[in-house]
């Protein structure tokens, strides 16, 4: 169906062409699913774009061919390729909400596509559209056709896009991280849907993802990419259970386990070489970070070695791979019992949204949340988007005023919002923000950012701040030279470290961390989780760790609160909640995570609860 032979893509940089993809070989048989797995920058999306020959400007295929049904997509004239796109070859994008044109109704967009496929007259097309929506399990199709994309949820948009992709019963589907932007429960359903449609139409699928576990569950074959070059390729189950390439093994070990005892994480040092660094590496691209690298690795690109039938790896020390392991995590300081450091009682937050002149809606984002946090305790808050967990974090830090309830920090009720309360709160609670892009002022140097708390007093001179900044940087594992850099000069992981350091500067007892590892590659995530564990031992503080990623919470936290539609529906010791969930929502969340165990059927046929569409329930009220 699709055969890539010796494909290479290059980017034209100022200092010459750099290979973005090289030595790419695979063949995808009809009806099979190939997973392209790798971290960001590995070049996996570039392969998807190469299929359509819609590469970013400056990028071009320099070698090899990409045969679709025996025809080379690379050298095919534009008109002919355009004939194939949308008919024989279809795509499902990463961001479903921006994948639909915001000013056209869903109906008109589907109709446009069907008209291009020459599906009869307007009435036939409408009937066909309804059938399509039904096939992707979207209820009330007729009503849906008249809606605009912004009226739909991300999951619904993705279903519409999947319906359109399968409208022509394509031979090939390229799905580029189709579930990354969605909540876990929806992710499971979308994956299920793609699998269902694929089986029905016998479509071949290229499934691009960063999640090795997910790929192992749903793909027939997996191709692991590192810095644009295949590291390993083989049957999904074999690659997952017996990885031959050290990179695959490290990827697997850097992901926290979802079952069994808590094991340590493998934190790969540094990061994947960027485009400009690629030219300077002589031998194996992974060698600089590889735990089993020897001198010979740095001298020449490793050839592809067949490990088993159809299972190959680009490594000269395949036998050493199985020996890579991680030590068990060091024991953390146990949480203290007694008077809690933080006690939240009946906390609620309602937002008013205007609706016309005299009416407004009252939306309850957080409803009657109570919990405690003890000294030295890490508590995780999990929930999907709209569950109110970020609002809760903002209230604890004083960025939003609670509508009801009390917050007692170190014995003092701070919910009155007076300036003395706020000063008390500031001394005890600090927040680490989710998106370092937004949380770090791009015009400040790192030293200035991490010591901003000293600037607030206005009495500390620059020398002293610089010294303090360097001490903080060494604590979070960054070189002192970094003090003079700007955030734009740092990598994503480094930025998040600076973000943490800034909050630590005032030595708070409580750290509130809102999704601080989401959106990062697993290897960087593992580094950060390691850092947090280390800081926990060295600094002895408490943390509220907010995340949608259950595996991370399982790894890091002593206790967990599960939030659903603004309420805490379940709480308890992490291990216990994960092993024997009681609330149906917790069960649904856990079931939606791809398990480590490949023998279980995943995704489960029925997920008990469809995820919360909105924060709370909208209540209409008069002003």
């Amino acid at each position, binding site marked *: 169906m699709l055969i890539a032979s010796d494909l290479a893509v290059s980017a034209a940089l100022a200092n010459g062409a750099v290979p973005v993809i090289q030595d790419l070989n695979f063949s995808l048989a009809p009806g099979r699913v190939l997973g392209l797995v790798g971290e960001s920058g590995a070049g996996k999306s570039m392969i998807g774009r190469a299929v359509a020959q819609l590469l970013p400007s400056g990028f071009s295929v320099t070698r090899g061919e990409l045969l679709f049904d025996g025809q080379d997509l690379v050298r095919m004239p534009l008109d002919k390729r355009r004939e194939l796109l949308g008919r024989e070859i279809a795509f499902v994008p990463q961001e479903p909400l921006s994948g639909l044109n915001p000013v056209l109704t869903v109906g008109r967009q589907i109709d446009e596509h069907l008209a291009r496929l020459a599906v009869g007259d307007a009435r036939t097309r409408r009937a066909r559209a309804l059938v399509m929506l039904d096939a992707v399990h979207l209820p009330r199709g007729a009503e849906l056709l008249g809606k605009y994309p912004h009226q739909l949820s991300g999951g619904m948009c993705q279903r519409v896009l999947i319906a359109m992709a399968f409208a022509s019963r394509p031979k090939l589907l390229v799905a580029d991280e189709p579930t990354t932007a969605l909540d876990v429960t929806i992710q499971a359903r979308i994956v299920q849907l793609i699998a269902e449609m694929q089986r029905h139409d016998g479509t071949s699928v290229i499934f691009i993802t960063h999640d090795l576990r997910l790929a192992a569950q749903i793909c027939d074959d997996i191709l692991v990419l590192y810095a644009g070059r295949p590291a390993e390729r083989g049957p999904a189950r074999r690659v997952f259970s017996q990885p031959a390439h050290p990179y695959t093994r490290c990827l697997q070990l850097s992901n926290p386990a979802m079952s069994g005892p808590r094991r340590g994480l493998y934190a790969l040092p540094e990061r994947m070489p960027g485009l400009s660094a690629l030219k300077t590496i002589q031998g194996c691209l992974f060698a600089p970070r590889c735990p089993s690298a020897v001198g010979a690795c740095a001298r020449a690109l490793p050839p592809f070695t067949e490990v088993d039938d159809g299972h190959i790896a680009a490594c000269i020390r395949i036998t050493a791979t199985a020996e890579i392991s991680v030590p068990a995590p060091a024991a953390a300081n146990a949480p203290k019992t007694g008077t809690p450091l933080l006690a939240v009682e009946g906390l609620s937050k309602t937002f008013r949204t205007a609706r016309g002149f005299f009416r407004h809606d009252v939306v309850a984002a957080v409803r009657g949340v109570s919990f405690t946090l003890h000294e030295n305790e890490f508590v995780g808050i999990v929930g999907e988007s709209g569950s109110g967990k970020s609002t809760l974090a903002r209230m604890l830090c004083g960025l939003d005023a609670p509508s009801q309830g009390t917050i007692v920090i170190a014995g003092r009720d701070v919910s009155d919002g007076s300036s003395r309360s706020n000063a008390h709160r*500031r001394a005890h609670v600090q927040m680490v923000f*989710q998106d370092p892009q937004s949380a770090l002022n791009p015009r400040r140097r790192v030293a200035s950012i991490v010591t901003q*708390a000293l*600037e607030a007093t206005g009495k500390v001179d620059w020398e002293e701040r610089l010294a303090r900044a360097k001490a903080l940087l060494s604590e979070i594992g960054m070189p002192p030279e970094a003090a003079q850099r700007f955030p734009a000069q740092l990598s994503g992981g480094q930025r998040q470290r600076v973000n943490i350091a800034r909050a630590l500067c005032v030595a708070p007892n409580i750290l509130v961390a809102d999704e601080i590892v989401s959106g990062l590659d697993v290897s960087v995530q593992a580094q950060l989780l390691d850092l947090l564990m280390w800081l926990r031992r060295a600094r002895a503080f408490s943390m509220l760790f907010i995340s949608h990623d259950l595996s991370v919470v399982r790894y890091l936290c002593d206790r967990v609160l599960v939030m659903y539609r603004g309420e805490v529906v379940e709480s308890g010791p992490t291990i216990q909640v994960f092993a024997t969930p009681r609330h149906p929502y917790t069960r649904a969340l856990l079931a939606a995570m791809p398990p480590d165990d490949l023998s279980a059927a995943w995704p489960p046929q029925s997920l008990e609860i469809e995820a919360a569409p909105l924060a709370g329930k909208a209540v209409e009220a008069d002003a």
Partner: protein
Amino acid sequence: MTRAPPAWLRSARVISGLTIVLLIVLCAALAPLIAPHDPNEQNLVATFLPPAWAKGGDPAFPFGTDSLGRDVLSRLIFGARVAMLVAVLASLGAMLIGAVLAYVAGYFGGRIDALIGRAVDVWMSFPPVILSLILMVGLGVGLRNVILAIILVDWTRFCRVLRGEVLVVARKDYVAAARLLGFSHWRAITREIVPASLPLLITLVSLEMGIDVIVEAILSFVGLSVSAETPAWGQMIADARQYIYDSPWNLIFPILAIFFAVFGFNMLGDGLRRTLDVRLTATQRV
């Protein structure tokens, strides 16, 4: 060690814009030294002389003379004084008012934002030319009042555009982080928000200067700017228009002067916008 000039000084647009602007500023500053004649000196035997290079031109009057025999070149050079003075002072004044209100509105939001927003709405319902005319009627003629009128009209341009930018920056987590670390509102605005909006502000001032040159010319064209003794480009156009058949040259020179001044400021503004990486969203570009 020599440091490379900053990016904004390496842009061809900025350099050419700056050159034009500096040239005109220099003319304005040194007007008494470089002008060949007194701009108000009448020479009734030599009216409507064409430029020196045309037939019948007099090398003593390089750009010819007007209806009263005054030297056009000298009047242009002196006219630059009014134009530049108004451009600089009015744009800075408008920026000051507009920026302060924009920071207050964008940072605090809520009612104060709504109030300032309504004020801008009221102002925007007046076409700027009409509002400045009415203000000039109320204030009376004179250089000081021209500047005041333009400030009172054009602060909205700054306020409108900047408010949007401040709104974006104020929602950034680093501003929230600064507050959590104990920054006062004043410190948060001056240390976190103002630096982020400075490139936009500089760009807007540069574009506003061009607009001010035009507005001053319009006001002096209808006789509502500086008094008649002070040469101004708009006045020269108004005079020349009455004798359009006798001497089209008289009309062309002040037109070109205004054009070059505005072009200079626009080039400078556009160059700064590109090099300082100001992302003006669509509606801000007016």
